[in-house]
């Protein structure tokens, strides 16, 4: 029986191999077809005078109805049809699979740590030939411009720019615990968290980004907290500057381990999904949580929150809370003509810069005003329209509005890591290693060593 099956399988597969079915297709798999640098070369294009064809836009599942209303508005104004698709699940993995297969992806969402690799693989166009490149870059927040410049080229336009790990507080819980001063460092924060627990005001007073499914919550949390604490993580070219023998990162992870073992954090936090992370904090009863800045609105939305009006951002006094998180519009490279590229630029411009007919920031202002999704342009974030919209729901608005502005004034950005070709792989490695330091499955030092060794190995493979 065994022999029959084996022989059959062997026979069949060798026959197919001999027929050479496999060969030609490997090139379709990306490898040999792409040759490294994906620079978009040629003179600047000019904005298309009329719409043509259809553009495919792929996004993750945030506010699809808002995006759809905007693609419809774009089609109405410029005549080009837009097919909008929402990608489920592990977005980076699925999109890079589609890019590798040269699918028609005209405009795609991306986070800051992805484009460098995609550019090196030749899967995306940069914005070097975009007609309003200089004007757009001139208006960007300096840190955003820096984040979007890879190999000296503008890689995409900003979809959002907010702080990931912005420290949020639930006033209700803090008042019950009798706390009336803001923490200014992580040590103070963790001391307060323990105080809240002792006071009985909350059983699990702190919700960290310890989750690791499926968008790598915990590596972001790691990079962010380490940067806020002023620890060196990655140098030029992504060279790791941390190790298991010097304190720093080891101490930080040991503190995380204590938070977990003292039950200061909600149960099941390690297997949360992003939605659980947000919903659990919105359900009330937790004092502090580093969160995405824009979710302050969700936490104060009566439809989604149990304690609307109680959630505020903790002011930054001396150190930053959180780091810049970039959403980026990228253009897929499938060898399209200048004409097609210009149409894609046009859509990207409509979403990520000014509507060229009216000269207004139409979509960015919509995002900022309706969803509190701060943008890469100071003019949008500080516009009276956005401020008025935010003040409508923001508790203690006179006090909080300047705090929120301060978060975006000088945020840190993990550029040295994000601008490597291996950031995604390192992050996915870290998302498996870090939880083991937290729950005690592995020694903190072992985890730190593994994180460092992974980076060193990847640098060897990809170069700096």
């Amino acid at each position, binding site marked *: 029986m065994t022999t029959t*099956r084996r022989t*059959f399988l062997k026979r069949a597969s060798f026959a197919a191999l001999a027929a050479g079915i496999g060969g030609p297709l490997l090139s379709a798999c990306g490898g040999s077809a792409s040759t490294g640098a994906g620079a978009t070369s040629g003179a600047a294009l000019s904005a298309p005078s009329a719409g043509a064809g259809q553009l495919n836009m792929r996004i993750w599942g945030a506010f699809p109805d*808002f995006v759809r209303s905007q693609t419809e508005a774009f089609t109405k104004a410029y005549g080009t049809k837009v097919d909008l*698709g*929402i990608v489920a*699940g592990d977005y980076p993995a699925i999109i890079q699979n589609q890019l590798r297969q040269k699918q028609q992806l005209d405009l795609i969402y991306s986070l800051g740590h992805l484009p460098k690799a995609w550019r090196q693989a030749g899967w995306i166009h940069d914005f070097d030939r975009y007609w309003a490149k200089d004007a757009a870059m001139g208006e960007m927040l300096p840190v955003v411009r820096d984040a979007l410049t890879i190999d000296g080229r503008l890689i995409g336009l900003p979809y959002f720019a907010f702080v990931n790990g912005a420290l949020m507080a639930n006033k209700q819980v803090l008042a019950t615990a009798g706390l009336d001063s803001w923490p200014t460092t992580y040590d103070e924060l963790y001391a307060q968290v323990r105080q809240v627990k002792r006071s009985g005001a909350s059983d699990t007073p702190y919700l960290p980004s310890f989750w690791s499914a499926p968008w790598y919550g915990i590596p972001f949390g790691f990079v962010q907290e380490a940067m806020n604490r002023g620890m060196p993580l990655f140098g030029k070219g992504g060279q790791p500057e941390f190790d298991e023998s010097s304190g720093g990162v080891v101490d930080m992870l040991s503190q995380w381990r204590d938070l977990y073992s003292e039950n200061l954090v909600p149960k099941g936090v390690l297997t949360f999904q992003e939605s659980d992370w947000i919903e659990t904090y919105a359900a009330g009863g937790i004092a502090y949580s580093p969160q995405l800045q824009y979710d302050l609105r969700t936490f104060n939305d009566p439809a*989604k929150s149990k304690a609307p009006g109680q959630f505020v951002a903790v002011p930054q006094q001396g150190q930053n809370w959180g780091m810049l998180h970039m959403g980026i519009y990228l253009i897929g490279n499938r060898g399209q003509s200048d004409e097609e590229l210009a149409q894609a630029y046009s859509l990207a411009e409509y979403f990520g810069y000014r509507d060229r007919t009216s000269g207004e920031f139409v979509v960015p202002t919509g995002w900022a005003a309706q969803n509190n999704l701060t943008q890469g342009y100071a003019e949008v974030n500080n516009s009276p329209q956005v401020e008025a919209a935010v003040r409508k729901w923001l508790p203690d608005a006179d006090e909080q509005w300047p705090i929120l502005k301060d978060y975006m004034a000088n945020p840190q950005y993990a550029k040295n890591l994000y601008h490597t070709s291996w950031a995604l792989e390192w992050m996915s490695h870290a998302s498996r290693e870090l939880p083991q330091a937290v729950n005690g499955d592995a020694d903190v030092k072992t985890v730190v060593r593994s994180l460092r060794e992974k980076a060193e190995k990847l640098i060897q493979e990809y170069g700096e």
Partner: protein
Amino acid sequence: MRLGRRVIVYTGALLLAAWTLIPLVWLAITSVTPGNEFARQPLPFWPSNLDLTNYPRLLGQEATTSSGEVLAASGHSELIVEGLINSAVVALAVTVISLAVSIPAAYALARLEVRWRQTGLLTILATRAIPPIATTIPFYALFSQLGLSGTRTGLVIAHLTIVVPLLVWIGTSFFASLPVGLERMARVDGCSRFQAVSKVVVPASLPSITAMAVIAFLTSWNEFTFALIFNTGSAAQTFPPALASMFFQVSVPTEVAAATCLGLLPPLVLAAVFQRYIRKVNFVGIQ
């Protein structure tokens, strides 16, 4: 029955019913729990008032709450509705094609002395051991070249790779268990061989074929890996990835529960209606 035995039997029956149904019932309850009662401490087993608005909102309608507030359609409604339609179309196509292909083959493998019979059956069994995640890459490469990725046709083809071997395997044991006299009588009555099969054998195995159809439909409706990797983000996205897209960033758990219930309804109804046929399916195969 002695009393002791009865106690054991009824306790067992209750446990089995609870184990089977509680997760499903809990999901249904969650889907009609008003947002402000959800995740309260301690968790209520039953909400104090029912909120049915999630369902119309997911199907793209406005809904009015009991307090008279009008809620807009869910931002995900278009995806969910499109997903349900795509799933139905793909599953129906898979059912029809796989039956047309599998029934003759299963019949031949069960009834006729065909050379390579054993090899054929073993190959079919072997395909069941291939992890789906392993075949996605080759398919994706091929489909991209043929322009099939992101289409319903492509997904139908991918699903056939799973469904056809399964149906042939099940069907073979069906036909092997039918009395041989059937065909002989038909042939004596002057039927051709094809007629003997199509006019006598097939009608006689109608319950089994119904079960095969249900299994084909369910397998396709439920398939996630191929659907996620080939079709997510496209207009041909089926229900499972559409549901998965609701879980990121901002989601409302009661709304997700309602969406899941919508997607569960077709398989649950099908399975409940046809369970007496499914029960007879012999997955054991022939020996």
